[in-house]
């Protein structure tokens, strides 16, 4: 009787398996499958999902029956009952193992999922094949069944494992690189609505900043804002929804008054200090939870003014952690002073003292008679050079600059003001000037977990050319800029600046004035690029001088510390 049940299961699966093989015959070949491979992956995935659902249903049925049967067993049926279990498992196994078979075969009938057992008067070859396979599975199952209990979870795990390998892993992509997906934009708008400051009129919410201008297709998944349309247009003037210090900060970010990774983080922490100072806990709330909720809309606002940098992200994480760690019985004044103290400590240790430590280590690397090449305006590199000059090292500096930001001019000004002799070139001349250079010092916006350096656009070119000329490249970066993201190219996650910055007016004439009317013209103003670790010889941090590939180690150590 039990055997007949088992056979019934077997037959049911066999029928569906047969159907799958039919599908294989019908497509008539793997070549066609390969050619249609890319387009059909979606359908294939759908098909796989449906099959998995089917298998689950079958498995549940079998499990129910198996449990019923095992229940009956426990009442004292003979050990023949063990047979249905392995065969039940084998049936369960067969179903997923049937899945690997059609996977290399994207069945063209995938959209029609309902198994059509109608095609019975069919190819005998297929049937024979199926039988052979079924027998193999049965043997395998019986072997596993002999193993006993460990086999069961193994069997249970095994169907899951191949199924999950084939199941497409749904990755969560951050919103800011999915701008061309309208669903994501809708979600963002809803999220901003929900994030209104609690207790306020529902009409007041964080406004959504609209994208501007034509985006180059490779980068259409990123935001592109115009500086002439600030977010404050949509806010009320004495801003009540968002703390005035944050509004001021957002304006300074979007207009570029505060630019540079360190400056932005310091200004952010300064604004947070003011927010915390002005904060009062509402009556039935706890500071540790309410303050974090209060900060969320501010962070969304700042993100819209200008996408957050990695250093700012780490600073925010730190603050949020500190706030959540405040014990609930702590009084408000005490809690606030503690938080203010934490912020001060963070800045002092991670930025100011780190800069000092890095300067000390770097000065050892600078010898007399050096010609140092720097790119753009990195506050840390400027600090290092000024310190080295104070310590009476004899060197000269070549400042490389690029449009449209032309930040090198600011670096040039700061260095020349100290008395360091400098040369100034544009990036197009870098291969001309490199034979004179003995070292290259670069600043970083962030260091990614796979050792890539994310920095101002143009840095990777400098590193590439320096490598070609065999000039050592040293990157200076504080550890609070280390980021757990992994990126190998500059396309996936970047920032698009205002495209109108690229337009130049000379003698009253602007050639690109109507660039938006040109259908085939797009202006692209990228802000960051990533440099692979092969081009970087050394990273100087406050923890020491490490190779680029040791970044994940530092991250791990930091996490353990915290």
């Amino acid at each position, binding site marked *: 009787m039990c055997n007949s049940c088992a056979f019934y299961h077997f037959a049911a699966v066999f029928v569906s398996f047969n159907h799958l093989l039919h599908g294989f015959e019908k497509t008539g070949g793997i070549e066609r499958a390969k050619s249609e491979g890319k387009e059909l992956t979606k359908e294939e995935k759908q098909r796989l999902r449906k099959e998995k659902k089917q298998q689950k249903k079958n498995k549940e049925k079998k499990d129910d029956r198996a449990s019923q049967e095992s229940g009956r067993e426990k009442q004292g049926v003979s050990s023949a009952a063990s047979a249905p279990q392995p065969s039940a498992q084998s049936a369960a196994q067969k179903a997923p193992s049937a899945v690997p078979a059609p996977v290399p075969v994207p069945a063209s009938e995938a959209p029609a999922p309902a198994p059509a057992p109608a095609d019975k008067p069919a190819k005998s070859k297929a049937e024979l094949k199926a039988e052979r396979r079924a027998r193999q599975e049965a043997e395998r199952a019986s072997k596993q069944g002999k193993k006993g209990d460990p086999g069961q979870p193994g069997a249970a795990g095994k169907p899951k494992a191949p199924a999950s390998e084939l199941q497409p892993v749904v990755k969560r992509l951050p919103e800011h690189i999915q701008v061309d997906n309208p669903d994501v934009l809708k979600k963002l708008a809803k999220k901003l609505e929900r994030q209104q400051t609690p207790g306020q009129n529902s009409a007041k919410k964080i406004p959504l900043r609209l994208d501007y201008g034509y985006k180059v297709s490779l980068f259409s998944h990123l935001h592109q804002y115009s500086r002439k349309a*600030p977010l*404050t*247009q949509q*806010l*009320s*003037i*004495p*801003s*009540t929804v968002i703390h*005035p210090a944050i*509004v*001021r900060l957002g*304006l*300074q970010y979007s*207009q*570029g*008054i*505060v*630019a*540079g990774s*360190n*400056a*932005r983080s*310091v*200004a952010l*922490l*300064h604004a947070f*200090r003011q927010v915390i100072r002005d904060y009062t806990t509402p009556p039935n709330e706890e500071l540790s939870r309410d303050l974090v909720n209060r900060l969320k809309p501010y962070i969304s606002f700042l993100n819209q003014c200008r996408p957050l940098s990695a250093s700012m992200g780490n600073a925010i994480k730190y603050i949020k952690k500190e706030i959540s760690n405040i014990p609930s019985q702590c009084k408000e004044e005490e809690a606030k002073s503690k938080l203010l103290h934490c912020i001060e400590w963070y*800045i002092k240790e991670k930025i*100011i003292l780190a800069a000092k430590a890095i300067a000390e280590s770097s000065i050892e690397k600078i010898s007399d008679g050096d010609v140092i090449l720097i790119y*753009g*305006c990195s*506050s840390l590199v400027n600090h290092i050079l000024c310190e080295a000059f104070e310590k009476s090292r004899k060197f000269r500096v070549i400042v490389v600059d690029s449009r449209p930001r032309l*930040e090198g*001019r*600011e*670096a040039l*000004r700061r260095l*020349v*003001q100290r008395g360091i002799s400098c040369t100034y070139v544009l990036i197009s001349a870098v291969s001309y000037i490199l034979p004179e250079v003995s070292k290259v010092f670069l600043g970083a916006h962030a260091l990614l977990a796979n050792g890539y350096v994310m920095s101002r656009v143009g840095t990777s070119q400098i590193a590439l050319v320096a490598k070609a000329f065999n000039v050592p490249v040293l990157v200076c970066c504080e550890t609070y800029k280390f980021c757990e993201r992994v990126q190998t190219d500059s396309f996936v996650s970047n920032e698009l600046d205002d495209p109108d910055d690229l337009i130049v007016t000379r003698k009253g004439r602007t050639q690109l004035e109507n660039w938006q009317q040109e259908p085939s013209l797009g202006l692209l103003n990228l802000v960051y690029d990533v440099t692979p670790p092969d081009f970087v010889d050394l990273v100087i941090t406050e923890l020491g001088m490490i190779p680029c590939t040791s970044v994940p180690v530092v991250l791990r150590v930091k996490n353990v510390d915290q």
Partner: protein
Amino acid sequence: MELQAVLMAAGGGSRMTDLTYSTPKPMLPVGNKPLMWYPLNLLERVGFEEVIVITTKEVQKMMSTDPKMKPDVKMKMEVVCVPEDGDMGTADALRHIQQKIKTDILVVSCDLITDVALHEVVDLFRAHNATLAMLMSKAYEFTETVPGQKGKKRTAEQRDFVGVDQSGKRLLFMANEADLEDGLSVRKSIIRKHPRMHIKTGLVDAHLYCLKKAVVDFLTENKSISSIRGELVPYLVRKQFSNAVNSQKVKDDSEDQTQKNNESSTNHELLISSRDESLLQLAQERSCWNDHRGDMCEAYHGGKLRCYVHIMDQGLCYRVNTLAAYIEANRQAPKLFDEPPVHSSAAISERCQVGSDSIIGAQCQIADKTSIKRSTIGVSSTVKERVKVTNSIVMHGVTIEEGCNIQGSVICSNAIIGRGADLKYCLVGNGQRIEPEAERTNEVIVGTDQLMEI
């Protein structure tokens, strides 16, 4: 709170006494709304919830009692009265309300009609941490004939010379022609820091200022300044480049913002130099931004006092302080509000022609065969048959008898125009009676009691 709004409504309207001898300037009807409604509406639209109104007792009484004069705004208005003798300047008024001021202020004059995007001015104030941010606009040439003006137009009023930097936002220089004796002299310190300066003369000051709280504190210390526009603004603009402010290093970079400077009174200018905290200083140092290039100085040349101006080149911006401006404002004001030009309670008979750019107030009665073009008819006015009103402003409670022809005129409240009168470019004062069949051209008809006033 970020900004407190202060509305200055105590001015006398000294340049249009014909209109203001009976109605105080803030209450003059423009497009059938009191003049002070316009700046209040601007503030309300932008999002202000409270405003401090500085005005005279007379205006306050009118606001509270007279329904048609009441500016209906949803904001909470805190009215502060000042004595009417006219000695109190705008800066004196600020000193008067110093106790109520807790944060940075936005000062608006009651005679400003504009549709500026206010965030442009306030963004300059916020982003650059400025001490003063103001609004200016290209001056408008009034082309309409002004009643009562004999002969050519008077020579233009004293010009203002405004110097701005290359970006057009930073205010470097401000002087009025009246103060310049033999010529325009520009200090070398300004030229050294800003070698390229644009000097503009065709600008009108909109009297909209964002001031830091420290300025108000400075005013309380320094009682000699009595007018914002006349004295305070030029003083601040000059002080940007003063050596005393710049060479003094900010000694204690600690975070006590509320301490007053205990040094001698000669250093009271430091009160208005904005004291940046040490973190802001650090952020500024680390930031790779500079507002100018070409010299060795850091951003803003290290100056802590900064004045900014936003110059509007498009849009409405009028200051209603002359008769010509008043007339022009009546033409343009309807664009600023959404109400239909013809009030629903006006009784207009079917056989009259009301032009689309005319405004008819509430409870008016317009009889048959009248023609009203490009005009404003005030509340509760009566216009009888066969009247032609063109290009005119008729205020509240006026009665115009049959057969009149009114062109290019201003008829003040409660006047009565007799039948068959023909008025061209006249100004009829408050409560005056024009006899029937009168023919007046280019006259100002006011009562004898007003003629006595000087």
